[in-house]
């Protein structure tokens, strides 16, 4: 069993997103990645958390979501889990629709695209009756 290094519960209030970003930047650099990569990861995880707040919890500030962080020689694994409305079948694919034309930009869809641009592997798992989990992995790139 690979236990996370950090596991935190966060109230679903947008004002805490900045704290999460600062934690992620620090953790990613501490795990041996560059500051540029840390900024990208902070952005992507912010997007995942924002999706929990906006879509899963419908903007309610009285819920909680969980972030777990783990790093090992292979790379980073970050999981964001909520207990809100599970994304209906097909919604993830719809929200990831190509937003290159301004007419197509929808905030939730753009967030999912950003997550997919930053991480090497992204696994979106809506629950059967409740909750969502998004598992994001970033591999260490060998130097030279």
């Amino acid at each position, binding site marked *: 069993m690979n236990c996370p290094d950090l596991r935190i519960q966060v109230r679903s*209030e947008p004002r805490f997103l900045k704290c999460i970003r600062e934690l992620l930047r620090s953790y990613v650099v501490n795990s041996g990645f560059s500051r540029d990569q840390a900024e990208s990861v902070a952005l992507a995880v912010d997007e995942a958390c924002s999706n929990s707040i906006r879509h899963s919890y419908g903007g309610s500030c009285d819920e909680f979501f969980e972030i777990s962080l783990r790093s090992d020689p292979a790379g980073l694994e970050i999981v964001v889990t909520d207990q809100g409305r599970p994304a209906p079948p097909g919604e993830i694919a719809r929200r990831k629709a190509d937003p290159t034309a*301004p007419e197509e930009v929808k905030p939730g869809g753009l967030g999912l695209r950003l997550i997919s641009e930053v991480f090497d592997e992204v696994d979106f798992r809506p629950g059967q009756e409740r909750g969502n989990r998004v598992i994001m992995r970033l591999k260490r790139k060998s130097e030279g």
Partner: protein
Amino acid sequence: MKVDRNGEKMELEVNVKEQNGDMLVTVKGDVDLYTSPRVRSALVKALTKTSGGVGIDLREVTYMDSSGVATLVEALRAAGQKKLDFFLVSPSKPVMKVLELSRLDSVFRIRKDS
């Protein structure tokens, strides 16, 4: 520094002023789900106060996420509908990064001011 209704320091500054016939919105700080509504309000206000153009100065934006990008896109569309010019002024590195990741970096007119 301003505080919000929770007494928390707001780490975003937004100012609107007229400049050379355009309305210029200047934003400093992090633009995220918490703060982007203030940017949106400023842009909506600026678009009603000009017959020329609206610019948004982003040189001191320290972070922007998809809610910020969506705000810019919304302003671009609204400006287009009103036949107004909309442009970004000196977007910072974090802004360009999120626009590039979003593949929207060539959608906006960008003006670089010194």
